[in-house]
């Protein structure tokens, strides 16, 4: 057991400040355990979100020593006892109270994405897909909606372009539909116009923080940008892709 100092942001949308808490830390604890201990013993009304405590629900995103992290997956033994550990809410979204912020903007972005639209089933009424074809979609569907990627994307965080860019989380959601072997919706115009694919300039900061290790930039955003470019800027490539795609696996490539 050892004693640590936590410097936690306390406050609401009107005002706030960092408050120091000294607390015991046991072997094997993660940051979330420590926050719970502080809550139970010293700060009963300290607001924070969590559910699964195992990196599966994406509720506990916060900034620990300036880095976006899942509190439940951040082990205390990655910090030194003499360091002060600073904890604050995700900066990109408006704070509600303490470590909880208003992430409702993300739910609004999801609505901009057209629902899944499957083509016809096989004659036996069932759908067939090969594991190989669903692998890349499954990578994107691992997303736990923790919004850490949204938090670091400079388009949203620094340039505040929440009006035009849906952010990396929803780019991968669009990719998961666009690359879904059964989906027949043409999503390219929306990806450019509604989702704002052009605003991403491939800094890969989102990929670096994703706790699910999704290759957001390389596997989702870049291929989508390429498709947009093909469609709008080079009709020959677009047509070519479309035609060869038809021979590969149905209506879309």
């Amino acid at each position, binding site marked *: 057991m050892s004693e640590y100092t936590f410097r936690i942001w306390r406050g609401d949308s009107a005002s706030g400040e960092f408050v120091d808490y000294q607390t015991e830390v046991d072997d*094997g604890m993660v940051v979330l355990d420590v926050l719970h201990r502080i809550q139970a013993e010293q700060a009963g009304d300290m607001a924070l979100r969590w*559910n699964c405590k*195992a*990196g599966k*629900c994406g509720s506990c995103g916060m900034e620990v020593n300036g880095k976006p992290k899942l509190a439940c997956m951040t082990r205390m033994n990655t910090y030194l006892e003499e360091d002060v550990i600073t904890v604050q809410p995700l900066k990109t979204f408006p704070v509600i109270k303490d470590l909880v912020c208003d992430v409702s903007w993300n739910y609004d972005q999801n609505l901009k994405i057209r629902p*899944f639209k499957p083509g016809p089933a096989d004659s036996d009424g069932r759908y*067939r897909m090969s594991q190989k074809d669903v692998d890349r979609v*499954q990578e994107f*569907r691992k997303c736990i*909606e923790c919004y850490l990627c949204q938090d670091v994307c400079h388009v949203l965080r620094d340039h505040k372009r929440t009006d035009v860019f849906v952010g990396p989380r929803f780019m991968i959601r669009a990719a998961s539909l666009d690359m879904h072997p059964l989906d027949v919706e043409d999503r390219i115009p929306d990806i450019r116009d509604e989702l704002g694919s052009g605003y991403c300039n491939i800094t890969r900061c989102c990929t670096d923080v994703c706790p699910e290790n999704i290759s957001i930039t390389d596997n989702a955003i870049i291929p989508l940008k390429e498709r947009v470019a093909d469609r709008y800027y080079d009709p020959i490539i677009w047509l070519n892709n479309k035609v060869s795609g038809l021979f590969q696996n149905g209506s879309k490539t």
Partner: protein
Amino acid sequence: MNADISEIQTFDHDVVVIGAGGAGLRAAIECSAQGLNTGMICKSLLGKAHTVMAEGGVAASLGHTDQRDNWKVHFRDTIRGGKFLNQWRMAELHAQHAADRVRELEEWGAVFDRTPDGYINQRPFGGHRYPRLAHTGDRTGLEIIRTLQDYGIHQGIHVHQECTGLKLLKDSGRISGVLGYWRDTGRFVLFRTKAVIMSTGGAGKIWRVTSNSWEYTGDGIEMAYSAGAELIDMEFAQFHPTGMIWPISVRGILVTEGVRGEGGVLLNSENERFMFNYTPDRFKEETADSPEEAQRWLDGDASARRPPELLTRDVVAKSIMKEVEAGRGSPHGGAYLDIASRRDGEYIKRKLPSMYHQFKELAEVDITKERMEVGPTLHYMMGGIAVDGDTQMTAVPGLFACGECTGGMHGANRLGGNSLSDLLVFGWLAGKGAKDYVGQLSRPLQIVPEHIEEARREAVAPLNIEGGENPYLLHEELQNIMNDVNIVRTADGLKRAIESLQKLKPRVANIYAAGSSQYNPGWNQALSMRPMVMVAEAVARAALIREESRGAHTRLDFEGEREEWGNINVMMCQNADGSMDIRKVQRDVPPDHLAEIAYANLEDLEGGLHV
């Protein structure tokens, strides 16, 4: 205080679904499809409910991996796993409709793992005769909740997130509204509605070692009970055999049964595969009796029987306990779970990625190279709100329920994978039930202002009792009391627990939550204490009355199943004076066609034939 409710924010809906897990979402989608104005409230953000954590898979007799499977075999497995206490009609509907509900998810965009010929793949799980669990790696719950969420947001459902339901309101016996509060502001909110569908999940937080999150405090069970609904089978709480046990801070976190489904084995400190010593007579015929046969099963030999690690959860959990008691436990009081020596590293990472990740990050164990240490953890409530099998309506007109907060479907023990399918089937049916009910309502419903005033007064009390009890510490005390209502029970322990719970009640009424009502977890915790204590008492009292050991309920003073109890369900409801009424109720005689399936030989069912 006057009873003026006009200043409370108010919404009008035809139906309000309380809870946004798999059951609530599926119910809301159906309500909306049926043309009802549908509201849905949930304590957390949308998509974070327990369902998101489900790992192993959803059970449905699709017959993709073994064509011998069909709904009858699924029904038979479910009833046998439930030790013949399941509600017959629910188990029947569940087995019949699960496959269609899973296929429907695929039409809504779910991406399950595939068989070599491109269909939904299915993995073996405890108590299921054939590989039956459709899955997406070991994050099936995420796949399902996200599919329902992304489909649901386009169906016109009004979602009210981070809103906690406190009390059901009635107009001369019928449901007419729900009172709740917003977590962020602490303000009260009123939903006028013709029907409510309860889908709030379980109550695992009354136990210390649990796979459940803070949300599982039995709110829905308490709200329904207080409104006059009956509860059934409350003594049956499932301990999952494999929770993490080390380090202490992760104790209880689930290790999916999928590890054993993929070939993982349980070992004691002497490196013995001890489960071979614990196969109950009822399952001997269907269980491998040597490691050699178990290996052939793993290699795909259709004539080999399932390994004993895949016996039902109650059996495996108790076997681990017995090994520990006999001094053959692992260093931290559990057993070893070994997949590393059974499958190659790449396979493990592909089929069990989140287990790999979870152990690596939280315990610094590489499961492709090392053994895991595991032990029982409270996981699931078989007991809950009693409903009509076809409509999902409770004893209260206009109140429906589905998902883990209900009881009856799983009897004395739930099979893995049967919860996710339960959510889909009964969520769907509850939506239909609510539609039928709302359609035949003939008069407008009223809200009684005094009922709201009373609930409001009670809810704000903890903010004003300076010097009262600490909600977090009181919660710990409750968990201590529940050590007597654990995986094994005795009359003495249960009586002690009931007595301690009585003493706890006045202290719960005297809780103090510092701070304001604005996003205040201390206050939220204070408000969840009453439901937790109520559910704890129901479990303890039902456990005391059932003088036998069956499924998840083990009485050291009454070992083994007793014939006279095989036909009894324990039902509870609230008396007019607020005390708990508890009754032994004779079970319905099963209709002939179901009795025939339940007691049939497997060979008769595998043809899918005459029964």
